[in-house]
């Protein structure tokens, strides 16, 4: 009977001590349903082959293949895959280590979810002194983040039949051959699992990519090509560029020009910002009209009556002209209801909800948000929001004993754990101060819940989208100023807390799926999320 797992390890002149640690970690697996295929790619050190022979002789589960010529990691890995008899390929580098429970944990998930085709787990690094460090708590399946960095990396377990179906590793992608394979496999996988446990120790030695990504510059170029080809395959129009941080940035093309309705609830309040007194909604609307490079939009201002003065309305008409749609609102303040009313009165295919205490400064802010909607499962997109003093107000939401704004109060240059703040990626929720939502999605989930008149309407909305299977994307490539809560009282009502707990208590109190290692004491504290 074939084994469940085929561990594939290409070998080329590894440090012998490191290789022995690697071998020990395989032999120490608590799960026994495996084979190990070692492919020596013509190591120059004869002791390597001796080690392989000894290993193969010591266990029937170990196979050592000797290549006749050095073909590189792609050729060697493909030789191993060709010999694999197991249902799943387990990729292990010749100097790294598995934790003893690595295969067992994967086996448990496969038993529970028989259709899973790809599994990845958390990892850390091990240095030459044998010290484990730099643990990487990865997000759950996050396709947008995978376009920016190969966050899946180690340990990856792939269904053998699917690996063969997509043609295994491709020549020409050396250094990022695994990244390229993960992209092609995940495009076709029926189910993808993330195991939030460290199951792999990546060894750092001088000159290794684990220690220094600049050690293999060709790998970044290969990654760029791999992601570009991925975009082409899945039908995303865009160009992939490399970043100074050694990651990738996809610049998406605008493939259509839908009408966008920018909905701004306001009470016409004024505030001193940057040493200047300003009527918030006038400044917000002026920044949109004057700076936006996208032209097919209307601005729907939902204003409180009688509080909003005639002079404010006159000024808005002057600033926005025919783009302005005026919607009076005469009831007791309810942010959610005002937004819903604005959306109902609007006519665009895409809605951008934006607070009056915001200011646009990137001309392509609309394009930067709406191009993500070429993917039908993207339900909401939000930008980087900056406080008056330039620090971060929100990089999306994360949950950790409550709902928080990620990176609150940090520098806009902050990269975050494993550079997560430098690239667009999935989030559990987004701040309603500025979000783009396709109209049909907004209506499908019933808009904003009016049970949350002041706070948590965005937390609730994000959870509703998630429950309906939509992804939410936060992007650092669009930034806006958000002078948080200067337009109204930021306090939270008990009713809203109870309503949130009643609907989503276990989600909000649990582990965040996309920023699992975010700690609000380090990565920004803001316990009163509201728009």
């Amino acid at each position, binding site marked *: 009977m074939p084994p469940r797992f085929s561990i594939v390890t290409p070998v080329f002149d590894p440090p012998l001590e490191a290789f022995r640690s690697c071998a020990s970690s395989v032999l120490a697996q608590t799960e026994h349903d495996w084979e190990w295929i070692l492919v020596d790619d013509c190591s120059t050190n004869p002791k390597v082959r001796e080690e392989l022979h000894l290993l193969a002789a010591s266990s029937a589960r170990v196979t050592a293949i000797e290549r006749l010529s050095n073909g590189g990691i792609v050729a060697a890995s493909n030789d191993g895959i060709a010999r694999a008899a197991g249902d799943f390929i387990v990729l292990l580098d010749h100097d790294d280590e598995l934790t003893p429970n690595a295969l067992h944990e994967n086996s448990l998930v496969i038993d529970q979810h028989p259709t899973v085709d790809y599994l990845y787990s958390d990892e850390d690094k091990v240095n030459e002194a044998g010290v484990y460090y730099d643990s990487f708590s990865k997000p759950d399946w996050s396709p947008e983040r995978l376009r920016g960095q190969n966050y899946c990396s180690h340990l990856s377990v792939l269904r053998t039949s699917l690996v063969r179906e997509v043609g295994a590793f491709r020549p020409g992608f050396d250094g990022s051959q695994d990244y390229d394979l993960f992209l092609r496999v995940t495009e076709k996988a029926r189910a993808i699992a993330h195991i939030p446990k460290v199951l792999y120790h990546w060894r750092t030695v001088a000159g290794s990519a684990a220690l220094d990504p600049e050690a293999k510059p060709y790998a970044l170029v290969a990654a760029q090509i791999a992601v570009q080809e991925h975009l082409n395959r899945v039908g995303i129009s865009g160009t992939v560029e490399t970043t100074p941080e050694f990651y990738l940035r996809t610049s998406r093309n605008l493939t259509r020009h839908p009408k966008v309705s920018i909905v701004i609830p306001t009470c016409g309040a004024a505030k001193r910002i940057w040493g200047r007194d300003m009527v918030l909604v006038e400044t917000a609307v002026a920044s949109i009209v004057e700076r936006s490079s996208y032209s097919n939009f209307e601005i729907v201002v939902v204003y409180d009556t009688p509080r909003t003065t005639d002079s404010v309305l006159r000024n808005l008409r002057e600033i926005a002209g025919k783009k302005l749609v005026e919607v009076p609102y005469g009831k007791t303040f309810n942010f959610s209801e005002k937004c819903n009313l604005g959306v*109902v009165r609007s006519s665009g295919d895409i809605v951008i909800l934006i607070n009056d205490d915001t200011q646009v400064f990137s001309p392509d802010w609309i394009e930067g948000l709406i191009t993500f909607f070429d993917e039908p499962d993207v339900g909401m997109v939000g930008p980087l929001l900056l406080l008056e003093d330039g620090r971060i107000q929100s990089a999306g939401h994360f949950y950790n004993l409550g709902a928080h704004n990620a990176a609150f109060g940090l520098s806009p240059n902050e990269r975050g754990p494993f550079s997560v703040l430098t690239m667009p990626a999935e989030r559990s929720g987004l701040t309603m101060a500025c979000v783009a939502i396709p109209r049909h999605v907004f209506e499908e989930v019933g808009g904003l819940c009016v049970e949350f008149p002041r706070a948590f309407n965005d937390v609730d909305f994000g959870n509703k989208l998630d429950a309906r299977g939509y992804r939410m994307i936060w992007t650092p490539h669009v930034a806006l100023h958000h002078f948080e809560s200067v337009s109204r009282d930021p306090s939270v009502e008990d009713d809203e807390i109870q309503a949130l707990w009643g609907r989503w208590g276990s989600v909000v109190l649990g582990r965040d799926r996309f920023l699992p290692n975010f700690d609000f004491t380090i990565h920004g504290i803001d316990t009163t999320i509201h728009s």
Partner: protein
Amino acid sequence: MDASTDHVAPSGDPSAHVAFRPQHVSGSMPENVEELRLEVMRLRDELIGCLAREGELRARLQKFHTGDARRDEAMGILNHQSVVARNEDLEDQIDLILNSRTWKIGALLLGPAKPLRKILRKRG
């Protein structure tokens, strides 16, 4: 004469026909449509809220059946009858939600979206 507008025949004429504007179209159409759209959104939200609350209750029940119950038992404070009552109370709450009119109406409203989502996922 426009039949949809109010008109009254001269008083004293027994054959007079008085046509009143029907109440349900007395308001302007756009407002009615707007109110309906808001109401549909509210119902959808309420349905998703019901589903979420049911999920929360089930999660709490499960937690109760596992960790909490074991801890209570170990502490020697387990009152079997109160546990059963609490359990039944939560089940009743779930039944109430599942049998509510809102749930059923909302399920009808959201129903057509399901196959569409499936198709989109497959194509995606």
